[in-house]
C-alpha cells in the first residue's frame, strides 16, 4: 500500500486528545496572525510634519562665528628691521637682544647664512611635498644621520615645525587606552598632544618627584587589581628638559629611576636644553651625567639653539620608525624647506666645533642670575644655569593686574635700550595657567658689560615699579 499522507494525518488527529488539538489550533492561528499583522516600531521622537520641520529650521539662529570682543584688534607694533643676534632693532631702535630665544645667534651667523643661500641656489625654497612623496631631499637624510650620530642615538626624524614635533610624537605613541603622567608646567604643545591622543592623563606638581611617586604608586595598585587591563595600558612619563614657562630643569635621574621601576616610557622635550645644557650642549642627559639611551624619545625644536625652523626627534630605531608612519605632523605635512635644514646642519657643526659657545652662555646666565636673584619683590623661577629667566611677582594679586604691571615694567626696560618680552599665554587654552612673567633670554653673543648693563636696567625698573605700587 502506498503511503498516503492525508490518511496518516487524519489518523493522528483522530487519535490525539481534544485539548491537544485545541492548543495546537490556537498556536497555528496565532502564528498566522503574527506573520500577517502590521509590524510595530518604537516611536523615538514625536514625528514632525514637514511644515514643523521647516519652522524649526527657520527659527534656529546660530551664535556669531566669533564672540564679540571690545578689545582693539591685537596688532603687534614691534616690527623687527634687521637680523637679531646680540642686538635687535625694533621700530628702528637698536636694543640689546634679550627677547629672542636664539641662544647662540645662529640665525644671523655668517656661515649659516652662506649655507642657506647656497641651498636656495641648489634646491629652491620649498620642498613641495610630504616626505613620502618626493619631498625627501638628501639634505634631510644627511641632517637626520648627523643628529643621530651627534647625540649617540640610533635614528632621528625631522619635522617641519617646532610646535608640531612634540605634539605629533606624543600623539603617535599614546593611544586611548594608555596613561600619561605629565608635568603641570609642560608647554601647550605637549598638553595639546596629550589631549588629542585621548589617553588618560595625570598631571603631577611641577618638578615634584614625590607627587609623581604617589601617582605612580596609585596606578601600580590599580594595575595589581586589574591585571588584564593593565597588560594593554602603556604608561608614559612626559617632561621637558628645560621648562619653557619656568626655566628650571627636570629631575632627570629620578625620572629615569621611575621609568625602570614602574615600567613607563620616558619622553622628554629638550627644545630649550639642546645646545644649552651640558659641557658640549648635548642636553639634560649630559648635564646630569645620565645615559641618553635611557630616554625613549627626545624631541627638540630647532627654533632656539639652531636658529632655524622645524624640529627633530631622536631615539632608538624601534621607537622612531613608528613616527614615520604614525606621526601626523610628519606624514601629512610638507617637508622642511631644504635651506632651513642646511643652515641647521651648519649651526650644529659650529656648536660642535665650538664648545666655548656653551660655556659662554652658561657664564652669562650665571652672572645675570647672581645679579638678579636678590631683587626685592620679584622671584626667579629658573635654575641658575638656565638662559631663560622668568621674573614673577613675589606677592601676586590677580592675573590681569600682575600682567599689566609686568608689561609696564617690560615697556620701561625696552625704552632703556634692553629688549625683553612678556611670555605669551593664551589664557583660555591653558589647562593650568602659570602666573604672568617677564621673560629675559640670555644668549652667548652678549658680553659681560652687556649683562651688567641689563641687570642694572632691570633692577632699576623693578625697584621703580614696585615702589610706585
Amino acid at each position, binding site marked *: 500500500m502506498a503511503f498516503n499522507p492525508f490518511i496518516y494525518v487524519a489518523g493522528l488527529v483522530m487519535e490525539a486528545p481534544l485539548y491537544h488539538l485545541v492548543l495546537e489550533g490556537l498556536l497555528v492561528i496565532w502564528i498566522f496572525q503574527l506573520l500577517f499583522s502590521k509590524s510595530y516600531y518604537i516611536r523615538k521622537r514625536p514625528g514632525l510634519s514637514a511644515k514643523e520641520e521647516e519652522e524649526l*529650521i527657520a527659527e*534656529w*539662529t546660530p551664535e556669531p*562665528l566669533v*564672540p564679540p*570682543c571690545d578689545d582693539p*584688534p591685537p596688532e*603687534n607694533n614691534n*616690527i623687527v*628691521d634687521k*637680523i*637679531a643676534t646680540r642686538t635687535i632693532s625694533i621700530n628702528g631702535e637698536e636694543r640689546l637682544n634679550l627677547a*629672542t*630665544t636664539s641662544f647662540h645667534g645662529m*640665525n*644671523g651667523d655668517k656661515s649659516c647664512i652662506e649655507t*642657506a643661500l647656497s641651498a*636656495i641656489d*641648489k*634646491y*629652491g625654497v*620649498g620642498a*613641495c*611635498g610630504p616626505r*613620502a612623496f*618626493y619631498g*625627501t631631499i*638628501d639634505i634631510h*637624510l644627511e641632517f637626520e644621520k648627523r643628529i643621530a650620530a651627534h647625540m649617540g642615538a640610533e635614528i632621528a626624524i625631522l619635522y617641519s*615645525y617646532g*610646535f*608640531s614635533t612634540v605634539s605629533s610624537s606624543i600623539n603617535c605613541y599614546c593611544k586611548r587606552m594608555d596613561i600619561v603622567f605629565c608635568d603641570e608646567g609642560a608647554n*601647550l604643545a605637549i598638553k595639546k598632544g596629550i*589631549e*588629542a591622543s*585621548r589617553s588618560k592623563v595625570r598631571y603631577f606638581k611641577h618638578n615634584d618627584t614625590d607627587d609623581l611617586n604617589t601617582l605612580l604608586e596609585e596606578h601600580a595598585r590599580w594595575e595589581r587589581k586589574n591585571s588584564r587591563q593593565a597588560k594593554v*595600558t*602603556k604608561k608614559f612619563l612626559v617632561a621637558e628638559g628645560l621648562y*619653557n614657562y619656568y626655566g628650571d630643569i627636570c629631575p632627570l635621574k629620578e625620572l629615569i629611576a621611575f*621609568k625602570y621601576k614602574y*615600567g613607563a*616610557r620616558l619622553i622628554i622635550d629638550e627644545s630649550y636644553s639642546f645646545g644649552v645644557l651640558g659641557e658640549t650642549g648635548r642636553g639634560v642627559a649630559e648635564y646630569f651625567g645620565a645615559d641618553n*639611551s635611557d630616554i625613549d624619545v627626545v624631541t627638540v625644536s630647532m627654533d*632656539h639653539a639652531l636658529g*632655524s*625652523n622645524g624640529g627633530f626627534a631622536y631615539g632608538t630605531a624601534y*621607537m622612531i620608525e*613608528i613616527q614615520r608612519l604614525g606621526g*601626523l*605632523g610628519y606624514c*601629512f*605635512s*610638507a617637508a*622642511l*624647506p631644504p*635651506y632651513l635644514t642646511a643652515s641647521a646642519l651648519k649651526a650644529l657643526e659650529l656648536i660642535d666645533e665650538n664648545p666655548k659657545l656653551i660655556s659662554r652662555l652658561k657664564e652669562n646666565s650665571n652672572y645675570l642670575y647672581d645679579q638678579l636673584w636678590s631683587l626685592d619683590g620679584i622671584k626667579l623661577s629658573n635654575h641658575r644655569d638656565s638662559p631663560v629667566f622668568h621674573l614673577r611677582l613675589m606677592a601676586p594679586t590677580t592675573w590681569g593686574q600682575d600682567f599689566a604691571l609686568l608689561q609696564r615694567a617690560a615697556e620701561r626696560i625696552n625704552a632703556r635700550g634692553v629688549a625683553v618680552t*612678556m611670555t*605669551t599665554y593664551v589664557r*583660555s*587654552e591653558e589647562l593650568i595657567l602659570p602666573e604672568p612673567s617677564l621673560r629675559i633670554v640670555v644668549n652667548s653673543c652678549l658680553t659681560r658689560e652687556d649683562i651688567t648693563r641689563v641687570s642694572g636696567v632691570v633692577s632699576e625698573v623693578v625697584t621703580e615699579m614696585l615702589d610706585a605700587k
Partner: protein
Amino acid sequence: MEKVRSNSNPNVKKSNEPIKIVKAEELKIRQLKMRSNYYTMFMTLLNFFLVFAAGHFRDFLRLLGYLKCDTKFDSKKNIAAKIQPIVDGFTAFYIRHIAIYAHDTMCRPLCSTPSAEIEICERKRQTQFHSTYKQTGRILKSLNFASYNYLGFAQNRGPCAEASKSAVEKYGIGMGSTRSEVGSIQLHTDLENLIAEFLGKEDAITFGMGFITNAGNIPAILGKGCLLMSDELNHASIILGSKLGGVKVQTFNHNDMVDFEKKLRKAVIEGQPKTRRPWKKIIVIVEGIYSMEGTISYIPSLIALKQKYKFYIWLDEAHSIGAMGPTGRGVVEYWGSDANEIDIMMGTFSKSFGAHGGYIASTKAVVSHIRRQTHTNYASAMTPGVAMQIYSSLRIIMGRDDRYPNDGQRRIRQLAENTRYFRTELYKRGYVVAGGDHSPVVPVLLNYPGKVTIASRYMLLNGIAITIAALPAVPITESRIRFCLSASHTREMLDYCIEKLDEVNSILSFNYFSKNPIPPMPYPPPFEIVQKC
C-alpha cells in the same frame, strides 16, 4: 578646438576689453568617480588575503629562525623592566608584511629642486623585507609628476629665489620668537595684506606650517556645543583639529550634497545628542580639491544651502589656491561664487607657491579672534626666506611684478591647458580617471596594490617619478596612481609620460574602461584669458 587654440595665444587681451568668464556651474562640469566592478574588488581582496597569509607564514618562519629581516627591537633595559611593546599587533604586522613591499616607492630622496625635472638618488635595500637603504651613488634623472608644484614656482633661479635670498641676508634665517613677541617683520604684515586683497577678504593671518593652520585654529573657532560637519575624506589636520576642540563631528558622504543636507536637517531639528538643546553653531569644513580623489567641492550648492540653514563655511584650499580659477583665486572664483559667502578661507603655501606655511583669510573680527586664540601663539613666526618666496610668487600671480607682468597668467593658462590635454588623452585610452574635469590632480585607479607598486618602479626605471597610494590612505580596493600636473610640464613631457603609462598598461592592464572610455570634455577651459588686476 579652435577656441582652445586661440586661448593658448601668448598675446593676451588688454584690460579695456570686457572680461568674459564662463562660470563652471553654467558648464555643468563633470566629477568622475572611482568605479570598479565586483570581480576586480574580489580579486583585490583575495590579493590582500594571500599577502596576509604569506605574512603569517613568514612570522612563523621567523619564530623558527629561518628568516632574517631588519625588525627593530626594543632596548634590553626596557624589556627587562617589562615595558609593554609600543605598537599593537595589527599595526606592526601591517608595517612588517604588507607595507614593506611598497616601501621603496615611498620617501625617494631627491638631490635637486623639486621642479619638473628632478634627480633622484638611487638606493638599494638588501631584500624586499628590509626597510633600510644604501645609496648606490647613481643619480636617476626623472620627470616629476608627483610634487605639488602646480604653478611651477619650485625654482632655484628667477625672481622669487633671488628675493628669498635677499630676505635671508637681511633678516636672518629663523626669527627665534613668536609673532606676538618680537618675531614680526614688515614682510609678514605686507604678505597678510596682499593675501587678503588677493582673495577679496578683509584680513588674513599667516602661519609657519599648513598642518597647524587647521589643527591649531579649529579649536579657536569651535568649542563645546558646536557641530562640525566634515566631508568623510577630509585631511588629517582637520580631524586632529576637531579632536582638540571638544566639538561634535558629523561626517557626510564624500562631496554628496544630498546626504549633507539630510544630515544637516537632522542636526538642526534634533539639536545636541543628549540634551536636545539647539546647537550653538554649525560649521562645515570642505576642501577645494581633495588630494586623493581630485574632486572639486560644490561651492554654489553649499552657498545656496547656507542661505537656508545658516551654517558657517570653512574652505580648505590647500590644493586649489593658485591652481583653479581664471586668475588663480581658487575654487570660489572657479565656480563664479562670491568670496564673501565663504566665512573662513584657509589655504597652504606649499603647493602652488613653492614655499611652506598656511593662511586664514576672513573678516577682521574673525582674524583678530584667531590672532588672540591660536595655538601658534607659542610657535615661532614664519621664516623671512619663506615669507618672501610667497610674497614674490603671489605678486607674480596677481600680475603686480613689473618685470614679469604676464608670467602669472601664463602659468595659470599653461596649467589649465596641461590639465585638459592630459586628462583627455587618459580618457581616450580607457583609463579609470577620477576627479573634476578641470582639476590638476589626476588619480588613475589600478585597484591592486601589487600593480601600483610595479607601475611605480617601472616608471622610475623609465625616468618618470609618480606617487602611488594604497591602504591606509585610500580604501582597500582602490589603490591608485596620482599625477600632479604642473605649469612647468611641457607638451613633450606629458606625451612621454602617457607613452610610458601605456607601456605599463600593456604589462599590467589597468585600462578597465577601454571598452567604454570616458567621453572627452565637452567644454573648453572655463575662462577666456584677460589681463585683470
